[in-house]
């Protein structure tokens, strides 16, 4: 059984860091579901959010210990193992005309999503939520013609005042 874990990886904000991380992932043949990176509250630190899919705890340990060995990796925390809030952003472009636009808007409201762009032949839907919620809206909207999907991959923060760098 494959299980997914979300790792918060704090790295030096230096050129080449993403090459090191992605190079390691391919060299060790890890299964990565999603990866996203961005600036943090500290300019010298970049946060990489990795969702990894593994068959066992041992495999998960390998991902964490191998990544930890990279010189520019400062800290790794497995947020799936602590109380945390996980979110992903998706934008979905759906073909919409006068006849079905109201139905689509209805679905968007039920999912508490937003319509961020409307054109004569399409609408763009934005939704932030858990992966399962996003999978849910995609499934429902599949009844219409989905033209394009862009997803960010999951990011997460721990609950409570302690940031990952002090965990």
């Amino acid at each position: 059984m494959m299980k997914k874990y979300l790792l918060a990886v704090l790295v030096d904000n230096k050129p080449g860091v993403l090459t090191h991380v992605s190079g390691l992932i391919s060299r060790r043949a890890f299964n990565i579901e999603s990866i996203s990176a961005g600036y943090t509250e500290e300019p010298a630190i970049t946060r990489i959010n990795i969702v990894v899919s593994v068959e066992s705890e041992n495999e998960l340990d390998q991902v964490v210990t191998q990544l930890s060995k990279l010189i520019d990796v400062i800290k790794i925390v497995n947020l799936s193992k602590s109380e945390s809030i996980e979110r992903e952003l998706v934008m979905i472009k759906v073909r919409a005309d006068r006849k079905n636009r109201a139905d689509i808007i209805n679905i968007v409201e039920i999912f508490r999503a937003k319509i961020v762009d409307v054109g004569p032949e399409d609408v763009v839907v934005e939704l932030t939520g858990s992966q399962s919620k996003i999978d849910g809206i995609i499934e429902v909207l599949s009844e219409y013609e989905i033209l394009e999907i862009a997803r960010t991959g999951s990011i997460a923060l721990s609950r409570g005042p302690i940031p990952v760098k002090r965990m």
Partner: protein
Amino acid sequence: MMNGAQAVLESLKKEGVDVVFGYPGGAVLTLYDAVYKMKFPHVLTRHEQGAVHAADGYARATGKVGVVFATSGPGATNLITGIATACTDSVPLVCITGQVANPYIGKDSFQEADVFGITTPITKHNYLVKDVRELPRVIKEAFFIARTGRPGPVVIDVAKDVFDTKFDYAYPESVHLRGYSGEYIGDEAEIDAVVEAINHASRPMLFVGGGVIGANVSETMRSIVSRLGAPVTTTLLGLGAVAADTKGFLGFAGMHGSYAANMTIQECDLLLCIGMRFSDRVTGVVSGFAPKAKIVHFELDEAEVNKNVAADYRVLGDLRWSLPLLQAKLEQSGRAYAAENESWLEKAIDRSKEHPFSYQPDGDAIKPGALIRKISELSDEDTIAVTDVGQHQMWAAQFFDVYKPRHFLTSGGQGTMGYGLPAAMGAKIGQPDSKVVLFTGDGSIMMNCQEFATIADNDIDVKVIIIHNCILGMVGQWQRLFYNNHYSQSELKGKTDFVKMAEAFGLRGYRLTRKEELETELPKIMQTAGPALVDVWVPEDEDVLPMVPGGKRLDQMVLGGNK
């Protein structure tokens, strides 16, 4: 003010570098101009691959960081095999490569290759330096990273214009890396648990890896071995961590390891594995490895614990911290381990006597085992043995007695053919007072034979023993055993005259073909100062035995020979 090139050399001096191995080219012309002006000690090899293996041999023989210069594009890509070899075997190197100048990066310029990208998966760390002001910090970090923790190669790719740019040079005093300290002090309770396990074990055994040599803790290791009086084996890279004549040393273990070592691993109830990584070449089929034993793993690199073999006990931390503590705790325990383990040790030694490494001494031909044993007898304990890769490598590991750490240099993890000649050269340069002998084959030697020119030019006293069987021996052995004698592309016709080749390069060359020449000719050759090539003809169909076939357990090895 000085330029980037001078800054590189000043920094190397501050790191104590006494020699660089390299090859010039367009992107490093300014660097080489600084070498010329500062008269920096440099060995010009005949191929960049020769330079990186030479630096590797130098590093393994001395424990210091090996340093390499190469130019951009093909110069740097020629280093790849050597960097991967060093990475897998945890050898500290700093490779400084030229990159095309900043404005040309990414434009597919002449001799441009993405060296940072290419070397990422085969280095401990790597850099691309585009601004001269970063150069001193990067060099300081590179040496720190290469030599601390689990050692490994670091590549610094430097844009050509960086070498030319003048700046205010200052070398940093210390290194600040948030994600790496190079220090690994572990949890003492883990050692207490191991002592407890030792106290309860009735059949303990020690399995010593290259980490013990890398951490320079062989002396402590030897004290622990004698305190426990337990049988001891090593990995291929661990050879020399304990002396060949240590009571209870069973030879190395694994695919072509000794009968006694492999059988004792399968029989023991506690296996103390120290600074090793459970390569598939030492475990046999991993599910059947040491089935009766609790596994103890002393390891610096957390990612190695439970990677291939699950450890029942782990001691995570630098061996320089953990082994002295273990030694002290074993001293304090008041137990007479050696007396308690005596009958178990005797059983292991009996196994060694029952099936030692052996060969059939029949006929007039020179048997590889006889040759290597003879050279071992002719060598002093300070002799450094270097090998290439293949059958001769295994025979060298079986028949050459290694007494000291850093005295058996071989490409273990990658099994890099062509490693031997340049590595032997580097070892001799690093340890000029030791004799250096290279065991190679008629396959391997051709993969870096251009370095005979470097050896001749610099009069580097290396004795090169070519075990000439007119076949890629290990490939041939597998084809004989598992592919119905289909010698597909493994036969060498023996037309190459290695003696003439030696002479062409400016070395002395000899050929031995009959058994008695081991007595009449070989001692003189080995005693004569200066580099020499010895082309020794041996039978083509000799197998390396024992052998644990792929997918089998260590106790399912095929034996052979009788002497």
